């Protein structure tokens, strides 16, 4: 069973449909009290401050902390990933969940003036060993749409990197039963579907 957290940050149609294409019927919940167990998908598009406010208002901050403590598989996508970190520079500084220590800041165009922001389109991923990458080619392309990127304090929490705007940034982070991508697997063709399928089969252990 997979539960998608709806905290008002963007619409969840494409995430839900991506799982339906894999034969799953995800449950979408708008409050932590509705959670009935099982793996959790933490998506999101939009700004950090309003996203974090939505997470707290629905009790999802505690739900996520409990899930991670219990080893329940959790996958964050895009803003959902960024909110797992400590502090985001967005909206004048937004405190995240700090489930992975580190920060989130904006691409700096002075590092590469011809880079377009947002970083939008297909970019390649170099990944380290993790069960969710099973069957995936190195340098497979995924679809990104974002202007901010995360930097975990502990390099071991960086599971995959992508190059853009003068940075080799963390495109995938993880720790324990937590796995999160900056890109959108639900919009990343077969490579994305493979990751989602692997997530559905993952029991939350790192190796």
């Amino acid at each position, binding site marked *: 069973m997979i539960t998608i957290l709806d905290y008002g940050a963007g619409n969840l*149609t494409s995430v839900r449909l991506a799982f339906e294409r894999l034969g799953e019927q995800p449950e979408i919940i708008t409050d932590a009290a509705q959670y009935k167990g099982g793996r959790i998908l933490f998506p999101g598009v939009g700004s950090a401050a309003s996203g974090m406010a939505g997470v707290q208002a629905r009790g999802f901050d505690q739900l996520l902390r409990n899930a991670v403590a219990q080893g329940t598989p959790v996958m964050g996508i895009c803003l959902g990933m960024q909110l797992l970190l400590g502090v985001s520079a967005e909206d004048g500084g937004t405190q995240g969940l700090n489930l992975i220590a580190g920060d989130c800041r904006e691409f700096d165009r002075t590092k590469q003036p011809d880079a377009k922001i947002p970083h939008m*389109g297909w970019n390649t991923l170099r990944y380290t060993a993790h069960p969710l990458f099973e069957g995936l080619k190195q340098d497979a392309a995924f679809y990104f749409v974002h202007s901010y990127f995360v930097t975990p304090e502990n390099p071991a929490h960086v599971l995959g990197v992508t190059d853009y705007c003068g940075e080799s940034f963390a495109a995938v982070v993880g720790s324990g039963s937590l796995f999160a991508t900056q890109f959108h697997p639900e919009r990343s063709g077969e490579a994305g579907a493979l990751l989602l399928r692997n997530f559905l089969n993952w029991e939350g252990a790192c190796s």
Partner: protein
Amino acid sequence: MLLKRLIVCLDVRNGRVTKGVKFKGNVDVGDPVEMAAQYCKDGADELVFYDITASAEHRCCDLDMVARAARALSVPFTVGGGIRGVEDMRAALLAGADKVSLNSLAVESPEILTEGAKAFGRQCVVLGMDAKRVPVSAAIPSGYEVVIRGGRQPTGRDALAWAKEAVARGAGEICLNAIDTDGVREGYELPITRMVSEAVSVPVIASGGAGTPQHLVDVLTEGRADAALVASMVHTMGYTCGGIKQALRDAGIPMR
């Protein structure tokens, strides 16, 4: 490395894909969602659906088609045509579209770009822009004028200036269609594509004029476009997305 994108455009008229020459003389080529799914399978990086009769019929784009497309496609897609305001944008996005393209409405009510970006994020807001070659003048220093209503109505506005203004107002991407080359298959309009791409901070999709893979190579290098849009090449001329992308890779352009 950020890759260049191949985008397939489907012009939808009364629920069917059509392909026209300079917005006239449309011929039926198939069911939009079935065709899009096939292009997706064949390597298209993104799809665009334009409901080309919605605007004239004063209705929003076909939301049932958008929902069917969202179920079938695992790559991003944009919808355009008939969007009358933020509520129509919301309906299209909730039906499963990733982005909404605004063209005539953005020219007539540019605040929609800001409202859309504020409500949904600028990554959802695509400025669709039709540009037509005109003599250089004080009012139109780029030599390209913005035209609306499917190319029928000149606006007296400079295309380059409008692109910059639209980005400042909230557009997260520009799909730049050249009226003079659209449907002619002799290559994209490189000068305006390059001017716009170098002037704005958001991605630019080149549209109008693709007839051979070399045309895409030209617009993605010399034209500085981030993505190239094709229609008749794959609908009726016998090219495949996979074949076009391989030709681009062979020319040294990084593709998925």
